[in-house]
């Protein structure tokens, strides 16, 4: 018998279950793109038959990090840049949990960049949503790793001299097995992409364009946007790494010129997830490790039985 009966529980899920019944109300500014992420998750999760207590949402620090204050699941609001290592470990501890990590562009591509690269490389079976508003929102508008070159802010008063980071290409090179970009202004696509990302077995990275009307006034609101799967002007095979790389590069190049490309960029359903790889080399238990601590009949090995080598 499982100690975690919310997991896989068969029941009707009410759409409102993911909205906290009591405070807090979101404190995001009116018009903030972060609402779009929240909404797409609130729709995607019940449509996938998930209930709030089988989901763990792990966030970083930023306006974006407040996501799990307003999404009623198990939540862990961690520290700046560190959502991924916390999320990864929770998934290894209990692979049956649905683990979603989320945070800002500063959080994920800047201070937490190392974790992002390695989580993608290892292909952990988690969903990673980056609220990309091309700015540091919470700390009041400083330049972020994705801010366009020339972007002026209080800390780059003459305009940023740095070329922005390429989130999609970097993720592809690092090894992510599902990579998409969506935008808060495109709720239907966003919901579908989030659903696919959650369903994907492996590291699913969603670069979610979230406009920040408060601090990034110059930036476009990501309209009009183009869905590369819908538009006749674009065609690529999402399973083809080279084609994906090419269109990702173009997408990153044109964003700051005002063309907002979105959609699925790369999907690799063949690559085993990290837990599968680890299991294959014999370093991952068959049963979720967390279950063992609640199993009164579990046998626990003792150091006493290791002493032969010391005698």
């Amino acid at each position, binding site marked *: 018998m499982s100690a975690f009966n919310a997991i896989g529980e068969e029941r009707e899920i009410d759409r409102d279950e993911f909205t906290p*019944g009591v405070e*807090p109300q979101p404190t995001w500014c009116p018009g903030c793109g972060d609402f779009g992420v929240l909404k797409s998750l609130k729709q995607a999760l019940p449509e996938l038959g998930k209930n709030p207590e089988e989901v763990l949402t792990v966030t970083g620090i930023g306006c974006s990090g407040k996501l799990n204050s307003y999404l009623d699941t198990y939540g862990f609001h961690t520290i700046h840049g560190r959502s991924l*290592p916390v999320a990864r470990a929770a998934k290894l501890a209990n692979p049956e949990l649905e683990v979603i990590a989320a945070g800002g562009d500063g959080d994920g591509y800047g201070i937490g960049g190392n974790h992002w690269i390695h989580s993608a490389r290892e292909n952990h079976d988690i969903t990673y949503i980056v609220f990309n508003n091309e700015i540091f929102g919470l700390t009041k508008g400083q330049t972020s790793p994705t801010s366009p070159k020339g972007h002026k802010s209080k800390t780059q008063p003459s305009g940023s001299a740095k070329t922005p980071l390429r989130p999609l290409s970097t993720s592809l090179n690092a090894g992510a097995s599902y990579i998409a970009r969506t935008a808060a202004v495109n709720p239907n696509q966003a919901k579908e992409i989030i659903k696919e990302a959650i369903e994907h077995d492996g590291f699913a990275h969603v670069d979610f364009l979230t406009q920040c009307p408060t601090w990034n006034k110059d930036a476009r609101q990501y309209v009009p946007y183009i869905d590369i799967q819908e538009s006749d002007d674009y065609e690529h095979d999402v399973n083809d790494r080279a084609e994906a790389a090419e269109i990702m590069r173009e997408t990153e190049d044109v964003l700051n010129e005002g063309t907002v490309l979105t959609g699925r960029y790369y999907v690799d359903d063949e690559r085993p997830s990290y837990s599968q790889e680890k299991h294959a080399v014999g370093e991952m238990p068959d049963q979720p490790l967390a279950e063992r601590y609640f199993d009164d009949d579990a046998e626990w090995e003792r150091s006493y039985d290791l002493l032969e080598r010391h005698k």
Partner: protein
Amino acid sequence: MSDDELIWRIAGGSGDGIDSTSQNFAKALMRSGLNVFTHRHYPSRIRGGHTYVEIRAAEQKVQSRGDGYNFLLALGDSFARNPQEEAYYGNEEIKPLSENLDELREGGVIIYDEGLISEEDVEELDLEERAEENDWHVFPLDLRGLAKDHGREVMRNTAGVGATAALLDMELEHIEDLMSDAMGGDILEANLDILHEAYETVNDEYDFEHDLRAPTGEHDAEQALLSGSNAIAYGAIDAGCRFIAGYPMTPWTDVFTILSQNFPDMGGVSEQVEDEIAAAALAVGASHAGVKAMSGSSGGGFALMSEPLGLAEMTETPVVLVESMRAGPSTGMPTKPEQADLEHVLYTSQGDSQRVVFAPGNIEEAYEQTRLAFDIAWDYQIPAIVIYDQKLSGENQNVDVDFFDREPSPDLGSTLTEDELKEAAHDASGKFKRFNYEDAEDGVAPRSIPGQKGGRYLATGNEHSPVGHIEEDPDNRVFQMERRLEKLEKIREELDEERDSTQTYFGPDEADYGIITWGSSQGAVAEAVDRLNEQGHSVKAISVSDMMPFAETEVTEFLESVDEAMVVEMNATAQFRGLIQKELGRFGDKMTSLLKFNGNPFEPAEIVEGYEVNLADEDRQPDAQVRIEPAAGD
């Protein structure tokens, strides 16, 4: 200094296999009924460099290095192969012999490999003259040649062991058994041949004039030889820890390695990750999801863990971190021991510290206190840290096998089951009041685990309300802060009352003079106290392990009971003495310091000397510091 002890030093290049040779020889001595203690000297240079391992063996318990040593096996440095580098490094081959002479006691025995160390070099040392002066007994043997004749050159260590056994009048039985356990086939045959050949050659060709012989002893129970790192790893296993995340760094790597090698067979998970921030964050994440988890590092890596450590404090996520100190600041001296990270471990991370810190002083304590760290962390939902050092990490000592014969304790402490969650307090929307200060007992609010029905809540590093929402209301802030801090007071009480004392005492119950120490300096202090009492001084000692919450009652009683005290620690700024004064707010005029920070641990004689200097100095100020620099002998 004891006459009936052997301190055998095997010296050679750091790639000469002296580790495994010495490990086996130590086991052979242990099996013969002796108590053993090993000390590993690390070369200060990265490439090659000469090094040694010392084994101290005696009938009575040994828990420290001795002063100097009495038997040298100098193998010659096989790493000295690049003639062009001689200009920089001089002649390396001779160093295992030449660099070890200063500490060799009178009457000592020397074997050196004349197959590697040239006659001219030895002449330059004036070895004959010095041997005469010090009554050393020198045995030049062609160990390399002997090994080559019967097997391969690399087996010259075996020849050295055979010769050692002959000169010490030891039987070969245990050495043979250990060889048979470790190898087989032709290799075993060749090694056994070499062992016997060396043994017989020495017996046939030499008349022994030295007095030194292997001591004899008997154990009441079966023994195991293990290191502080083994003890910490085994404590974690028996506490039910099955998740470790880490990034290699000397000397913490030992614990990480031992657990990584054992966990797969125990259904556990080990993760080597991208950096130490990740390592600590993974341990927090795994613990949050219901697993007993740990991480650890040495100084620099632990610095990176600072923020995740604070997150564990604020979210009340149980976790155990181990910190294996080496000489700092910064990269410092990576392979040298020091006790200078105490303040780092006590206070790193923003805000008021809310953690438990234990500093075990010997191998048994390392095991016990690692288990205790897990028990307390999970009972009280608080991070617990075990701080130790390069010395405790690497030294081996024999322990009764029965010591480990106990039940594991995988219990998750104050964690609820789904049934218990049904009875617990929830808000109107059904969110679990995980940080409920109203029904918290001893400050502990029981927790749920993700995936449990009826347990959802938010964990956050921000100050939060009972269900975990970010909350800056002043009353809530004060309630939550006081509740978290109350746990520390309860832990202090529990450590005082219920658990066996984690402090260790040496010497008579009553004495005029007190020595206070912590961590791995314990062994040398214990021996110094014995010697001082034998010499007629009235001295006792306490070795303190409870750093946070601090062992207030016991240290107060100790200091009240003596006229004066000396605090012995391996650092330059008297961190532990500072902690005592901070915690107790008095006794500043009673305490002096004995400090050593040259990269080598204390020898008992240095502590005796520190005591004498302190007492002899009539004008000393209350906060006087005696520094051992350079150390006697090294």
